[in-house]
């Protein structure tokens, strides 16, 4: 780790310019942290507490500008520092407003873009409802990234949208891909003919990424927010999305992703699906009865399976193409399990899943439970499996670090790995841990330097406990800014076993743990 800084005597910029520059600098290659600030005593104090203060900054005062970069090596630090000065000197991009200002409020934005038909709302929850209603009344479809919106408001918004033939994605909708544009936490994927509706954000990221990595593509990916498929909301947006895809000439295959909807909502989805003359594939995580099968929907248990089938259908294959691919993956998982279970110590038998994506935490429990039995979690399917303390794992455990209990006052774990990194090291120190199971989500909105942030923790864990296995998957594509292949290679180099999907990683983790629990301590 290298800290490098520079002083520009007598230079000055405004706060917004400098903070934007620091944010951009943080996404430069190898940069772990950075700051570009006026060298006031107060700012030097903050730099010190952030571990970014250099001795030479003593020479700078409040009328000087300082830039400091913490990077993984000297070359990257020097390159980033040089880039810092270029960034702050960049002229701001031309504003959309004819008056050369950022639009203030919806009216100003509409004036700037009178043809807009979609608004993304990311303001504090208590203000988002009225803004969304205003947008709907102006004929805009709405993506509500904001959460903390009351159920009553959600219902009101969605009913109003429905009456106007508009769509409300959210609240708490973190992922969508509309007309090829990834919105919020989303990935750069191939464009294609698979349309998706999802009430599960990371689930939608996983299926869009798998489809794209298989050479197929996405027409539209519509998020609805997890509460949409509950009884009270009644699946208003889910059904509207399904209808829209049914009518969309670009969409040839439809893929539905959700945790099990309420029975009444499921009946509506089934009724709608029956009328659609396009292949409909679904994964309703936790719905073991496959209630949509009777409606002609091809329903699967994992995100991976559903995405591979959708991709196969899109590319003109039948479902056996996906079956064959999955069979090959399972053979590879068994082979790897034999290798990874070797060398485990007595008593080293538990899986510890540490997830940034809530859907992945759910999928992990569903995949591993048949092989391992009881799995404790902070987001369990059965109340009896609730962890007494989310900070302390028990037996086989799956933790969703994106839950509110972990995220209040700090960035989401897809952005900030620090909390999970500490937990990785803590789990490695537990002698009963056989496998640390992780998801790594890349793409827009996610951590822009995942390798720099997570590999030190993985290496430290393997140093603490060389017999532990770190198994993970990378959700994303090679088109993403972080590049999936690069991230996978970096994780492997750090000692992790990287699988092609979350479900595959979970299967492998369960195989290893199951083998370690057998008297022989080996997978068969």
């Amino acid at each position, binding site marked *: 780790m290298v800290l490098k800084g520079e002083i520009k005597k007598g230079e000055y910029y*405004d706060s*917004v310019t400098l903070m934007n520059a620091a944010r951009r600098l943080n996404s430069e290659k190898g940069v772990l942290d950075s700051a570009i600030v006026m060298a006031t005593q107060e700012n030097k104090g903050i730099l010190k507490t952030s571990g970014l203060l250099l001795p030479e900054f003593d020479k700078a005062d409040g009328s000087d500008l300082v830039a400091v970069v913490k990077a993984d090596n000297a070359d990257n630090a020097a390159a980033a520092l040089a880039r810092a000065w270029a960034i702050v000197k960049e002229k701001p991009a031309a504003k959309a407003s004819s008056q050369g200002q950022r639009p203030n409020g919806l009216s100003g934005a509409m004036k700037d873009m009178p043809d807009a038909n979609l608004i993304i709302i990311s303001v504090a929850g208590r203000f988002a409802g009225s803004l969304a209603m205003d947008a709907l009344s102006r004929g805009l479809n709405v993506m509500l990234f904001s959460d903390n919106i009351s159920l009553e408001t959600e219902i009101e918004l969605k009913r109003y949208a429905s009456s106007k033939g508009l769509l409300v994605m959210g609240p708490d909708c973190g992922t969508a891909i509309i007309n090829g544009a990834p919105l919020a936490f989303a990935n750069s994927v191939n464009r294609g003919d698979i349309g998706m509706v999802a009430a599960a954000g990371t689930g939608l990221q996983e299926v869009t990424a798998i489809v794209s990595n298989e050479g197929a593509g996405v027409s539209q990916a519509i998020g609805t927010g997890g509460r949409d498929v509950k009884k009270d909301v009644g699946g208003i947006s889910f059904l509207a999305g399904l209808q829209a895809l049914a009518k969309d000439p670009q969409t040839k295959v439809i893929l539905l992703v959700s945790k099990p909807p309420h029975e009444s909502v499921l009946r509506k989805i089934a009724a709608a699906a029956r009328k659609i003359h396009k292949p409909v594939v679904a994964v309703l995580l936790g719905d073991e009865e496959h209630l949509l099968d009777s409606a002609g929907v091809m329903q699967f248990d994992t995100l991976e399976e559903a995405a591979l089938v959708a991709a196969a259908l899109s590319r003109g294959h039948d479902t056996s193409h996906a079956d064959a691919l999955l069979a090959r993956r399972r053979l590879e998982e068994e082979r790897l399990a034999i290798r990874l279970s070797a060398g485990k110590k007595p008593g080293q038998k538990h899986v510890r899943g540490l997830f940034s994506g809530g859907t992945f935490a759910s999928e992990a429990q569903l995949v591993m439970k048949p092989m391992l039995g009881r799995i404790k979690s902070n987001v369990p399917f059965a109340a009896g499996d609730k962890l007494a303390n989310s900070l302390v794992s028990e037996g086989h455990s799956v933790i969703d670090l994106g839950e509110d209990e972990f995220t209040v006052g700090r960035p989401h774990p897809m952005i900030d790995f620090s909390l999970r990194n500490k937990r990785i090291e803590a789990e490695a120190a537990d002698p009963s841990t056989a496998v640390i199971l992780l998801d790594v989500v890349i793409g827009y909105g996610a951590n822009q330097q995942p390798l720099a942030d997570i590999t030190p923790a993985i290496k430290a864990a393997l140093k603490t406990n060389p017999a532990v296995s770190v198994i993970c998957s990378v959700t994303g594509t090679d088109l993403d800014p972080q590049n999936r292949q690069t991230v996978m290679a970096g994780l492997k180099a750090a000692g992790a076993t990287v699988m092609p999907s979350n479900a595959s990683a979970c299967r492998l983790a369960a195989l290893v743990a199951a083998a370690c629990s057998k008297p022989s301590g080996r997978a068969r």
Partner: protein
Amino acid sequence: MTKAISCGGLVKPGSWRVHSRFGKAVNFTGGEGMVFVVKPEVGGGPLSIVLDGTDFADFCVSLEVTDRQIIIDGTAFRRDGIPLYRDFPSLPSGAEKNYAANLPALKAFLCARSPKEGVARAFFAPDEMPLTCNFERAVQRRASSAAELFRGGYFRKGTLLLRGLGPGLTPAGDDAICGLLCGLNLTARLCGRDVSAVSAEIVREAMGENLISNALIRCAGEGRFFEPLRLLAETASAQKPDFAAAGRRLSLCGASSGFDSAAGFALALELWLGQENLALAAGGINGFEGRN
């Protein structure tokens, strides 16, 4: 043709030299003092000369001020021909009640509209700040803690945390302190209270090495408003406030300065209304109670 729109009452005679230059403002210094030559959209102020019809990119390199004239780049403007800027808000009857009624909407407005680099969310919605840089997080944490200290009556400690906070030339924390001081003085004026001790303590602790901030804080310590904040104070005192219009003016004042000062002003209103409630419950009003 260049026209002088207004001049602040605290613009002192002297020879001034350029301190710093932005797209809509050129800041002049002379010793400890400052004069700001600004475009009309930035608005007037006690230390501001508002000029219309000029391009600041290659203009405004020299400033001479006498009792009778203001000479900018050799062009003289008669002082008695320039309207004097009005420092204090003009408030309607019932302003107290309206402030109380409008405060939640004002805070909501500031959280929704102010730049994310500003302090409004740190003051009023600290759990809703999606931040990624450590420095940014530290700034927001400090701002948030400062607001809590002010709420607890710890004006000195709150000021020390907020002073100089923020990466830019005019730190967001200093702007917020200015807004707070303006708000405290205004509410004191409304109720006939004396906040001079608290105000003086905040000014004393807030003074740092930043000449611009110091000049602004001195004005705010006397309860003198710059125009965007004055318009917001007047808007918030109305029965039916149009925050959108006031917000447009705030957004033109620096990168986030307008909104930061507004956040400080709203915090002052919150403190005042809280004190009012406490004092009424205790059976009397004795002004702001400061703690160390």
